[in-house]
């Protein structure tokens, strides 16, 4: 398993406002704008990550089987059609961000911090994908997380079987599969020698998914 620390230079403000429920037609007011900027400038931007590769050994019923275990998602199977390996990974802000949020006695600040934490860890996932691309010299697919698309949340079990117990200090609840620290993302990517361009959102009709990357409606 490979460990790495990531330090982000910039937190994406636009995504923070999106996470708070704003968009171009409904922008935040002056107070929320300035308070968000204050909070963004005060939070630590270092994340911890780990990852492990697994060779794809066969494909069965539209799903990928690796030498570390199956990835029980047909959408991932489609994404990984031309891939040679899967990469299981975790990225976390660590317990510090959770503590900052819990210590807030103001719900507005807590909500902003929560949004910042979510955006931070999502940016961390993108950094890991870039690192994987450089390290493995492979094309890396979009990340798939348990609980999204058709990848059951219970498959968190497989990710943690691959990465080992308490990887980088992240714990998973045995019943609910909730991870702590909360600002943690687990995911699997496909890696191959040809571009893996399929966007799983194209295959899915759930328009209200907060992680949707593409609209299925004509523009």
């Amino acid at each position, binding site marked *: 398993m490979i460990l790495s620390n990531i330090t982000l230079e910039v937190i994406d403000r636009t995504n923070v406002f999106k996470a708070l*429920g*704003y968009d171009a037609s409904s922008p935040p007011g002056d107070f929320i704008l300035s308070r968000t900027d204050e909070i963004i400038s005060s939070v630590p931007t270092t994340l911890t990550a780990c990852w492990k590769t697994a060779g794809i050994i066969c494909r069965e019923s539209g799903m990928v089987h690796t030498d570390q275990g199956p990835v029980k998602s047909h959408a991932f199977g489609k994404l990984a059609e031309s891939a040679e390996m899967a990469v299981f990974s975790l990225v976390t802000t660590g317990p510090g961000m959770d503590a900052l949020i819990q210590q807030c006695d103001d*719900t507005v600040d*807590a*909500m902003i911090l929560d949004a910042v934490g979510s955006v931070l860890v999502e940016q961390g996932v993108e950094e890991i994908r870039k690192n994987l691309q450089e390290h493995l010299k492979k094309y890396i697919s979009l990340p798939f997380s348990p609980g999204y698309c058709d990848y059951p949340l219970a498959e968190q079990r497989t990710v943690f079987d691959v990465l080992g117990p308490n990887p980088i200090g992240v714990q998973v609840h045995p019943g609910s599969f909730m991870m702590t620290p*909360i600002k943690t993302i687990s995911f699997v990517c496909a890696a191959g020698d040809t571009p893996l361009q399929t966007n799983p959102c194209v295959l899915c009709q759930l328009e209200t998914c907060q992680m949707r990357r593409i609209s299925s409606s004509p523009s």
Partner: protein
Amino acid sequence: MNQTLNQLKDAIVQADAGRVNQLLSEVKGNADFDMIFSNCINPALDVLCTNIKQRQCAIPELLLGLRQVQRITQSISENETAESKRKKTIVIGVIEGDIHDMGKNIIRDVCRGYGFEVIDLGKNVSSEAFIEAVEERGADMACLSTMLSTTIDSMGKTVKDLKLSRSGIRVLVGGAFMNDLIASQVGADGYAENAATIMPVIERVLQ
């Protein structure tokens, strides 16, 4: 006075603390808590919730308005007993196995703003803890929250246990993956999508 109350309502919607202070000093002594609640607080929160539904603002604006409501309530309650005027009692918590509590905290603040007595049990709350709180406080409603589909069995058990333990208890559920169908399947009386839509659901269920 009506004009002043209306202006105070607008000041809450705009989260204008200075204006709220100014108008509150005019209103205090001339209007009781019930009058301020009915003419300012309740309609202001309704406006904010409508604005969210119409995508004219987002949840943070509602929370900023609630800050003003809390200040007004504390200021008025210093001089009179607001307890007897309280609406019903709600017990709220995040279901066992989950610790995502941001949504629950927002719902808690909204319900308090609308005048409900809210007992916040926190997160990772067992069925037994919900029952104990509901019985001890004579609660009228329990609000159960979860972000995780894997806690659905725990939620179903808690709803069932609550209904068995206290006759007439109403149960609402909420969370990222929830909907009316799942709420019905777990035996709940209703489901609220978010903080802007919860109040009509609570009022319907408590009728």
